[in-house]
């Protein structure tokens, strides 16, 4: 009677087993990713209209080559400062005065890839005076004066390629560093023209120490250290007990030169390089360096003449570590270290092996002991390699996937970005214990805590700079906005507060309390301190002058007219230079200047400033010019004409100035 049940029961058992198995499995289906924003996040980022943010956030534009400024916690974009790229909006790189800022030994370079902003420091604490930023592609460092929020100095780095591990600063901004992401052959032409497969033999790196003059911000290469041919990635200065040392992460110790994604990822450990920069400084001072070829430009913005000045250097002081033992040491660091970060006490150095499953933390006194004891596990290209175990404070186990960068709060905690697992992981520097983790959307690169790489972090927020946004914002075709995310870190747990879109690629950023920057702000340039060679300090000083084919116009602007406003006698084949002085002496009254057919850009001239636009008319006729910055109720009336006559014409050169206070 029961037999059929047994037979078929077995059958059903086999067949239905899989069914039941699947239905009983938990999490059988993918769920959807949801962002949990809890509590009063909105209130925490709300900055009332008319009130100021608490922090400035200086965010690199990455491939835009510029530097963007946001307010934190609101995430409001305040300015985009032109640095390495042309900016037709302000005339930066187009006006005769600013062109020279982009001057290099390769000519005027209109673009770069700017990665790491770094605020100047006093006693290891950001002081709000300057912001440095590196140019990756054509190796340069720029200095932005935070009094005017303008690029006021750019230096080209000689004997370098791929200036990535830059421009991190020493505790008193004695130096900012530059390093070579790409090793290259150096020297004369014959030494530089070598086969690619002679990489190991001929390719070298350099670490340059750039000195900004404290008063002027003029930059020069103080000295340069020659290094083995590896790829330097990031760096940070020691502080406190480790003051006087600098740490650089390096990958591609395989010294591969093709298919790096595979060939430069083979070794279990690469290096963090420790540089005794105090020793290097002393050696340089004692004349132990050699002047080697290395032509480079240093461009500086003279605020008195409102013009750039370029100094050309032919050589550079170089130190060879082979001749100076004790200058460089390598510390093994798991798998292609990226970030190289020093904690606020200066005792701990965190290397982030981006392909490693752990985070090594090195201890400075152990490094010193290993050096003293000659506790080496070998050498690499003649540089001693310290024993890993001897210099290690400990390892953070399984922190996450793809650790990139670490910043610190003021409570002894570290925050590390995880690119692959797309999260921020909080851990204790002393105990190496993981305390919290929070997802980022998506694929975080750098992260930033105000003062988070200095001696004094203001540990209120951490900001994530993400590489992709996907579905986070309204879609805008194939190219989507880039994005940052603000997290509160003043509690035990990190808490997501805000997403905000950014310009360019928000690569790295620094943040500083607004109170340290605000008092420095210049509101306008004093007209009496204007020493531009073509300044017109009043409408009486305006004039027009022909010098052969060149026509120079000393021109002024004030609400709401140009003086002169009509010009006749310009001929085809002439080059016209409009030297425009903004006579306003009040805050927030720039004037713009545009003329039809200008193949360069406009001018945006700040009060008390003089800027020059070169214009080459291409056709006979009347050419209107006008103010582009809405300056007053009569802004639309702020215009004029230039009459252009044929080449052989005998129309006399005249300028018409019928203004309120001019006696012409």
């Amino acid at each position, binding site marked *: 009677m029961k037999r*059929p049940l047994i037979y*078929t029961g077995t059958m059903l058992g086999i067949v239905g087993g899989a069914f039941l198995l699947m239905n009983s499995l*938990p999490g059988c289906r993918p769920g959807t990713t949801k962002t949990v924003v809890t509590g009063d996040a909105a209130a925490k980022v709300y900055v009332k209209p008319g009130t100021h943010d608490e922090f400035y956030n200086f965010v690199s534009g990455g491939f835009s080559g510029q530097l963007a400024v946001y307010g934190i916690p609101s995430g409001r974009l305040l300015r985009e400062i032109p640095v390495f790229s042309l900016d037709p909006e302000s005339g930066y790189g187009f006006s005769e005065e600013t062109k020279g800022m982009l001057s290099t030994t390769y000519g005027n370079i209109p673009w770069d890839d700017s990665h790491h902003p770094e605020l100047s420091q006093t006693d290891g604490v950001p002081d709000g005076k300057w912001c440095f930023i590196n140019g990756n592609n054509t190796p340069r460092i720029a200095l932005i004066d935070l009094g005017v929020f303008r690029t006021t100095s750019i230096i080209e780095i000689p004997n370098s390629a791929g200036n990535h591990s830059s421009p991190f600063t020493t505790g008193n901004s004695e130096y900012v560093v530059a390093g070579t992401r790409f090793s290259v052959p150096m020297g004369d032409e014959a030494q530089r023209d070598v086969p690619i497969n002679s990489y190991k033999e001929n390719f070298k790196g350099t670490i340059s120490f750039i000195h900004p003059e404290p008063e002027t911000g003029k930059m020069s290469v103080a000295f340069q250290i020659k290094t083995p041919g590896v790829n330097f990635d990031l760096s940070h200065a020691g502080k406190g007990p480790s003051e006087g040392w600098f740490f650089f992460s390096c990958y591609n110790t395989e010294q591969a030169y093709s298919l790096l994604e*595979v060939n430069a990822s083979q070794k279990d450990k690469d290096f963090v390089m420790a540089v005794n920069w105090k020793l290097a400084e002393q050696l340089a001072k004692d004349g132990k360096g050699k002047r080697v070829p290395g032509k480079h430009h240093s461009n500086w913005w003279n605020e008195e003449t409102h013009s750039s000045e370029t100094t050309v250097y032919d050589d550079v002081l170089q130190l060879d570590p082979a001749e100076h033992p004790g200058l460089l040491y390598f510390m093994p660091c798991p798998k292609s270290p990226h970030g190289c970060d020093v904690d606020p006490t200066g005792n701990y150095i965190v290397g982030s092996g981006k*392909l490693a499953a752990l985070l090594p933390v090195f201890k400075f006194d152990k490094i010193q002991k290993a050096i003293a004891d000659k506790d080496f596990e070998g050498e690499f290209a003649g540089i001693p390699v310290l024993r890993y175990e001897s210099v290690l404070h400990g390892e953070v186990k399984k922190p996450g996937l793809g650790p990139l960068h670490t910043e610190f709060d003021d409570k002894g905690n570290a925050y590390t970005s995880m690119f692959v697992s797309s*999260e921020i992981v909080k851990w204790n520097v002393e105990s190496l214990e993981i305390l919290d983790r929070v997802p980022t959307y998506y694929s975080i690169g750098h992260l930033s805590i105000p003062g988070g790489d200095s001696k004094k972090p203001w540990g209120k927020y951490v900001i994530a700079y993400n590489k992709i946004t996907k579905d986070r914002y309204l879609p805008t075709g194939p190219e989507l906005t880039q994005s940052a995310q603000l997290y509160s870190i003043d509690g035990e747990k990190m808490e997501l507060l805000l997403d905000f879109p950014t310009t360019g690629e928000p690569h790295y950023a620094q943040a500083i309390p607004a109170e340290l920057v605000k008092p420095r702000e210049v509101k306008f340039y004093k007209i009496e301190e204007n020493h531009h060679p073509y300044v017109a300090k009043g409408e009486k000083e305006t004039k027009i002058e022909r010098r052969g084919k060149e026509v120079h116009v000393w021109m002024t602007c004030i609400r709401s007219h140009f003086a002169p406003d009509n010009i006749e006698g310009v001929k085809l084949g002439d080059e016209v230079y409009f030297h425009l002085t903004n006579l306003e002496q009040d805050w927030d009254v720039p004037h713009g200047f545009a003329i039809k057919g200008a193949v360069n850009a406009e001018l945006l001239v700040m009060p008390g400033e003089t800027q020059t636009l070169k214009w080459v008319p291409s056709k006979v006729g009347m050419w209107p010019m006008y103010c582009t910055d809405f300056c007053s109720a009569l802004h639309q009336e702020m215009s004029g004409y230039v009459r252009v006559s044929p080449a052989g014409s005998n129309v006399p050169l005249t300028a018409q100035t019928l203004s309120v206070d001019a006696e012409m």
Partner: protein
Amino acid sequence: MKPISRVMIALAALSLLVLLVAPIWRIDLQAPQYPEGLYIQIFADHFHGDTEKINGLNHYIGMATIHDEMFPEFTYLPKVIMALAIFGVIAALWGKRQGLFAGLITLTLFGLWALYDMWKWGYSYGHDLDPRAAIKVEGMVYQPPLIGHKKLLNFDAWSTPDIGGWLLFGVMGMLAVVYFLELRELFRRRDAKMNT
């Protein structure tokens, strides 16, 4: 067998033909950077979905690429499915219980073989990694789950039957039910005979 049983067997067998055009299995992947998810559907003769994207990702960890040509199964699987369907139709026409039994066993064996085959591919994909891979995590293997969920580095992976898979189970269930009913009928008659 009763006519209704034979009709059901024939229907079940013919519905196997759906496996020729419908996805049989699917693997879903989700990671923080892929909120929309990545998926692969396995058809009788090809893959469908994000194989190229997945290949692109897998090269970091040294996993072999996934291409239709690499799977000989795709050449003979449609034939096997057709054979199974024809077998079923013949069993229905023949009308003997032995035929049904053989069909049920064959189908079950087929299902088990398919699962084993999938596991085997998963194993070799997850274990045979390029030693030169950029990312090597000690002790980590990337074998996808056979059924259900598994965490593979930053990815959550789910493996579940798709339309065809569910249909296959359905057909097996249906045949099993028919078989049960037929056996019950048989034993009932035998018992009735013995009692008389």
